[in-house]
């Protein structure tokens, strides 16, 4: 996988990225970064890859639930500062729907309005959702498709191919936790308060 041209965007989202490192990275091109054996360049490359990996996994693993007819929300507690990237991704995927992602500390809101993404940072997820609930005056949380998914997912398992190792490798616990998958799996009913 090549280093993307906008790698600074990913680097700045890394939890350990300092101003100094970002400043130094500005002088390096993506091509150089791809092949360099300099210790700092290698570190930057590794950090970019870590953020890219988490972005990819969160885009895959975060599950959304409807809140009334205009809102989709989901749990997200990433290690790196990628909340906005992920929220924008889901807003683009679901045009004209407000997408809210977050956890007990912070939340991100994105809305794709005719191709333009409108954003807002919020406090606790539960608070943001309460605000939206009162704006829309909706009390109903909407249908969850978890049961449909579970019945379908179980049907895809073929015992003769069982390989727990490769399954764990592709769905690391840490990423499942960040996307709230384990919380959803372990509780039969997840309420707004769980966020």
């Amino acid at each position, binding site marked *: 996988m090549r280093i993307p041209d906008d790698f600074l965007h990913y680097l700045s989202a890394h939890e350990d990225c300092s101003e100094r490192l970002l400043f130094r990275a500005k002088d390096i091109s993506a091509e150089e970064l791809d092949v360099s054996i300099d210790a700092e360049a290698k570190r930057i490359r590794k950090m970019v890859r870590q953020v890219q990996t988490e972005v990819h996994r969160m885009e895959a693993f975060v599950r959304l639930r409807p809140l009334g007819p205009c809102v989709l929300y989901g749990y997200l507690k990433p290690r790196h500062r990628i909340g906005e990237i992920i929220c924008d991704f889901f807003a683009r995927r679901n045009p*004209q729907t*407000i997408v809210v992602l977050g956890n007990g500390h912070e939340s991100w809101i994105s809305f794709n309005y005719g191709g333009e993404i409108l954003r807002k940072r919020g406090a606790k997820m539960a608070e943001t959702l309460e605000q939206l609930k009162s704006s829309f005056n909706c009390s109903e949380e909407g*249908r969850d498709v978890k049961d449909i998914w579970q019945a379908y997912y179980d049907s*895809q*398992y*073929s015992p003769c191919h069982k390989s727990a190792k490769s399954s764990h490798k*592709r769905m690391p616990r840490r990423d499942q936790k960040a996307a709230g998958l384990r919380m959803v799996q372990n509780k039969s009913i997840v309420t707004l308060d769980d966020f």
Partner: protein
Amino acid sequence: MPMVTLEKIARLAQESRFDSLGPAVDVDPEKLSSLGEGTRYDVCASTHSPRNPNLPGICHSFSHDGRCVSLFKTLYTNYCSHQCNYCTNAANCSRRTATFSYTPQELVGITLSMYRANYIEGLFLSSGSGRNEDHIMERMLETARMLRQKHEFQGYIHLKVLPGASRSHIQEAMELADRVSINLEAASASHMSEMSSTKNYESDILQRQRYIRDLATSENLPAGQTTQLVVGASNECDEEIFKRVLYEYKEIGVRRVYYSAFSPQDGTPFQNNVPQPKWREVRLYQMDWLFRVYHLHPQEIWHAFDENGLLPNADPKMTIARELVDLPRRPEHCTLSRAAHGSRHRAQKRQENNCSQKETGHLPKG
């Protein structure tokens, strides 16, 4: 970066009045699971589609066997009039389960709601032949049509072409889907006659594949056509499979061939046949990659087969390299460099073909 108030976002969303709930979904879990089981052995390794804008492949979940579950992979109906000796849905299976069938509306509802919730990237729709193959194909197309046209569904759609599908149905499927496929199942017509008494290899399968090849344009079917083989159901050897695979890549132009090791199912005429080991599937995939991705010449790949025409349970790349080193006309450094320059060569080829990383990211490890 536009930052706005929550009230403004809420007001705009209310004005656009989009229903994030989608159509109501109420499905019998038994039906979901029976029709889902019907596609358990169908492989979909990637949901990448090189359309404009490009659709990246995302694996949303993995089953306990480590395989990606990123499409809602299901049968339209599990009622089938074909008599395939390996299949539990076949008319000659003595332990057929209850028959179920979806309606296009149900499939659309399930697909949309799971897509919105980010469980899946799209729909993979296959089917038994029902009482009338043409009718089932029409219903499958109606499902895809509703998704694309009525609900402006942007996700991935893979449609299976039923053996008896008409040319006009195939054309419509190609316009609606990202990828279509028709399963070869057997390596040759004689093996097919052992496996099924009702399917004609030439007219039901190869001819339909040629229709797809001939109808393909730069606009339709961005992810091309693929096919799948059941490995070891009729005692065919790997060499026969390789010959067929070469034909598929060169003459039909399939993007990928998938292999599925045969496992005997209770109640089918093949229930007492020997199950094929998983590694056979893995070795075939490795052979496939040597040809398709590493561009080894078929004559080099022939070295990988043993005297019975089978691939041994060893890395075919190493077997080929050892064989070629012994050849007097070929200096050693040639072979070694070829065996070793894998990833760089692959990256170059990938760039040349403008082929996606996702599409080529599933090399079975051996």
